[in-house]
Structure formats: C-alpha cells, structure tokens
C-alpha cells in the first residue's frame, strides 16, 4: 500500500504534466464539496432557525424539509467517504495521501518545515512535491479525514435518535451520545465541527487559487481535469 517517495532528482526533472487526480477522486471531491455546502447551510439553520412563518402548521414544512435535505446530504457525505476509502486502496498512490501522515519519514518532517517557512515568506522556494505538499497533506488529513469521521459519527448518532432505539443507526452510532455527554453536547460538538470545516474550506480554497496564480504548478484545474501542469 505504501508508495515509495520519488527521489529528489525525479521530482526536479522538468515535466510538462502529470496525471494526479483520477476520475473517482475528482467526482468525489466535488460531490463532497457540494454536500458540505448543503450540510453547513441547513445545519446552521437547524441550530438557528429562520424567523417564524405564520398560518397553520399544516401549511408549512420548513424545518422538516431542512432536516430532510440535511439528512440526504449527510448520506452523500457519509457514503462518499466510504467510496473514497475504497478508492484510496485501489487508486493511484496520490489517492491515499489524505488518509495517513508519513510521520515515520524524516524527509516528510523536513518538507513540512520547509513549507511552513515558505508560506511564512522566510524561504523563497517551497520543497518539491507532487500531489499534496507536506503541509497540505497534514491539513487535509486532519480536516478531511479526522474531522470528517467525527462529523459522520456524531451526525449519524443524532440521526439515530429520530430512527429510534435498536435502529441500524442506533446500533452502529448510538454509543457516541453517552460518550460525548448526552444529546445536547453531541449537537454542539457537531455544530462546532461544521465551523471547523468552514475554517478549513476558506484556507483550502485560498491555497488552491494561490498555487495557481503564484506557483509554477496548476491546482484548481488539476482537480477538474486530473492533470497537473507545470509551467517551466
């Protein structure tokens, strides 16, 4: 499963383009992004509902619909995550970069430090990298994999409350509720997880656009076409 890192010479060799993101990875990325937008918007409104609507209760289903959309998007997020894990196993070596951190590799730590210096404007050149640089990999590992799993577990635990005791969701995820100190606490941690994802999304989008504008590699177009182009 473990990919061997490229030698420095290999990395520095002039290259026109490299196929990094395979089709399933790209489709998942955009579905995942879309589900996050829908989940964040509906989730925020479930915690902080809109001003009340008048008339008979039977004429409206505002919260009901918001919750239903949230649940459907949650399924997209959760099932997408499972499919993505599968692709991390069978896909190319870049496809599994978001599921682990190569902390046993000295060169990874060196690259991580190099990236930090580069983004702090202390060093002019970033260490060479192919798919995700060391800093990006650390960020994506935490905010996508760890936080994503946390949101899936807390989310489906809350969903199980509606399905009831002994439902499949209760059997698989119900134990999360007492573990985090009860239903209200799980809700608040789930809500906080949403804010952490937004925090990540802002920086993620900025970094991707910045890489396109300021470095010699393409980034935004790479997650659309799959090909990373090198301008030199």
């Amino acid at each position, binding site marked *: 499963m473990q990919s061997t890192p490229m030698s420095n010479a290999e990395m520095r060799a002039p290259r026109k383009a490299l196929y990094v993101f395979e089709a399933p990875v790209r489709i998942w990325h955009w579905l995942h992004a879309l589900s996050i937008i829908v989940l964040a918007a509906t989730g925020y409104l479930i915690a*902080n509902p*809109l001003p*009340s609507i008048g008339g008979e*209760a039977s004429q409206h289903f505002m919260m*009901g619909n*918001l919750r239903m959309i949230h649940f459907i998007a949650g399924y997209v997020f959760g099932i997408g995550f499972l499919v993505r894990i599968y692709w991390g196993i069978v896909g190319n070596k870049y496809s599994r970069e978001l599921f682990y951190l190569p902390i046993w590799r000295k060169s990874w730590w060196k690259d991580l430090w190099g990236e930090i210096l580069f983004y702090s404007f202390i060093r002019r050149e970033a260490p060479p990298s192919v798919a995700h640089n060391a800093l990006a990999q650390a960020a994506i590992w935490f905010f996508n994999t760890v936080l994503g799993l946390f949101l899936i577990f807390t989310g489906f635990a809350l969903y199980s409350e509606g399905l009831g005791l002994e439902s499949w969701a209760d059997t698989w995820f119900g134990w999360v509720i007492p573990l985090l100190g*009860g239903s209200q*606490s799980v809700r*608040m941690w789930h809500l906080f997880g949403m804010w952490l994802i937004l925090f990540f999304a802002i920086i993620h989008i900025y970094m991707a656009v*910045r890489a396109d504008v300021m470095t010699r590699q393409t980034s935004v177009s790479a997650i659309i076409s799959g090909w990373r182009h090198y301008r030199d």
Partner: protein
Amino acid sequence: MPTRDTFYEVMRRHGVTRRSFLKFCSLTAAGLGLGPEFAGKIAHALETKPRTPVIWLHGLECTCCTESFIRSGHPLAGDVVLSMISLDYDDTLMAAAGHQAEELLEQTIEKYDGQYILACEGNPPLNEDGMYCIQAGKPYVEKLRHMADHCKAIVAWGSCASWGCVQAARPNPTRATPIHKVILDKPIVKVPGCPPIAEVMTGVLTYMIAFDELPELDRQGRPKMFYSQRLHDKCYRRPHFDAGQFVEHFDDEGARKGYCLYKVGCKGPTTYNACSTVEWNGGLSWPVKSGHGCLGCAEDNFWDKGSFYSAVTDFGVMGGAEATADKVGGILAGAAAIGVAAHAAASVVSHMTRGKAQETSHD
C-alpha cells in the same frame, strides 16, 4: 413481620378492595406498555409471590423524588406501592425514628439477605471521607455500601442518584457521585428526572416486584419503556417545529398561539423522558404544555449544559469557559478569512519585491 405476606394480602390489610386491586393491575400493565393479558399476570404475581421488601435510602438530595412519588396520578397506585414500601424503611415516610429506624435496616438484612430492592434517592458525597452527608453518626456512603452489599437490585431514583444532579455541578465541591460509580457489583436501574414522573416510578417498581426481574434497560441503564424516546418525539407542539413556527419571545404572538419553544431553549429535542406522553400530576400538565421549554432535567449534567433559554448552548471547551459553538466557530472562520486576506496581500508584496530583486541582479 414474621411470615412473608403476598402483596395482595398487604394491600387488603390496608383497605384496598379486590376491585381496586384489579384496576391497579390493569392500569399498571397499561402504564408499562404491556398487552391486556399482562393485567392478569401482574394480579397473579402480586397474589402469589411473597412481598419483596423495598428499602428507600436518602443521600444528598432535596426529597423531590419522594414528593413526586407520593403524588402518583392514580392515587391508588401510589398508596399501594407506598404502603408496601413504608413497611420497611424510608426515613421520610416511616413512623419509626432514630435508633429504632436504623435497627430496621439490620433486621431487613437479617431476614431478607439478597432479596430486597434498594431504592436510592440522592447520592453519596465522597470528599472528606464522605463527611458531607452523615446519617446516624456515619457517612452516608458507608450506609449505602452496607445496604447495597445485601440487596438484590438497586433503583437509582432521580437525576441525583442517576447522574449526580445539582450537587455534582461544577466544581462539585463535595464530590457528589452517582450510585453506579460507587456500587459496581449490583444491577442498577436509573430512573432520572428532577424529579422523575410519579407514574414512571411506581411503574418501574411494580414491574420489578411483579415480574421479579429488571425492566429492559437502554445503553445508559434507563428502562426502555419510559426513556426510549425524547420529549420532542411525542410533543404535541411538534407540528409547529416541523413547520418552522417558533416562539421568539415569551410574550409574542407565537407564544400565545402555542408555537414550538425550541428557539427559547426547550431541551425537548435532546431529553429522554416520558413527560410528553405520561405528563405530570395525573396528566394535568407538563412544562411545554404550560408554555415553558423543557430544562432537560432527566439528562446527564443538565445543570452544566449552558443556558435553559437558548437552542445553541455552551459546550464546555477550554476548561469550562462559557462559549457556544457558533461563537467560537464564527471567530475561527472570521480569523481564517482575515488571515487569508492578509496572506494574499503579503504574497503580492513578496512577489513584487522578488521581481525587483531579480531585475536588479540582472543589471
């Protein structure tokens, strides 16, 4: 009490007619969510089984569980179970006092070793060797451990015995500790609530006495028959929640129309109890019906969970600092946006200075 009477005999002696006894059996069966055939089974069990003694202990508590219990909606249910219990030991309700009362405990252990049910109201404080709650000259925790050693099963009444409740609120100076963290070797049924609903209490006790087994419990040790759903799931205001019609202030039009109380902090969506079905005071009312949100009193740590009057509550991060997820998250996301803008500007400046540096080096 030299011979062990049956429940039925005890009830008859207390002036309960057979007709009333059978009514009590069918009512209890219905209250427990059992089928009609169980009324006969309960009656049969109570007629033939020797009476199970119940010892009712009080630790750190406010006696609201007892107050609730003696107001059981169906007066007979309360009377019946109460007369069964007060025969043995409950320091609030029994006639005996002082040494005489404490002797009763030893007599019960002697006669019914391993056969009685221990009902615990309140919890033991463990700090200072338990000195914050002294009964008959000894720390309560010792009395609890002693009685628990010889009992068959324990019923943890209310949020005190089940979770710790107000006396265990941060910083919990007396280290008030729920029963299940002190007694580890006996089956425990948690009946949380501050107080629990009277019919829930009598129902649980009757089930244990009549069927000689614990009711089916959920993951956290609460009887499924009363604690498997949230108030929200059976709330009569639920249609207003689904529609998106909320009380915004307690004096607005929505409050007059009986809209959902979620936005003014109702904890019904996160609280497991039977209030919205069994209701209180014999089905007279319950918090939401009276126009006030649920406080979540049957939930673990409800007193430390932040405001009773907002839906988004503090979530206990960073050493108990008061902050909601929306506040902390909003600051984080805002900081990210500002940080990104600043970094972008710095990147442009860095790029331009580098360009100049390269130009000058070419010269």
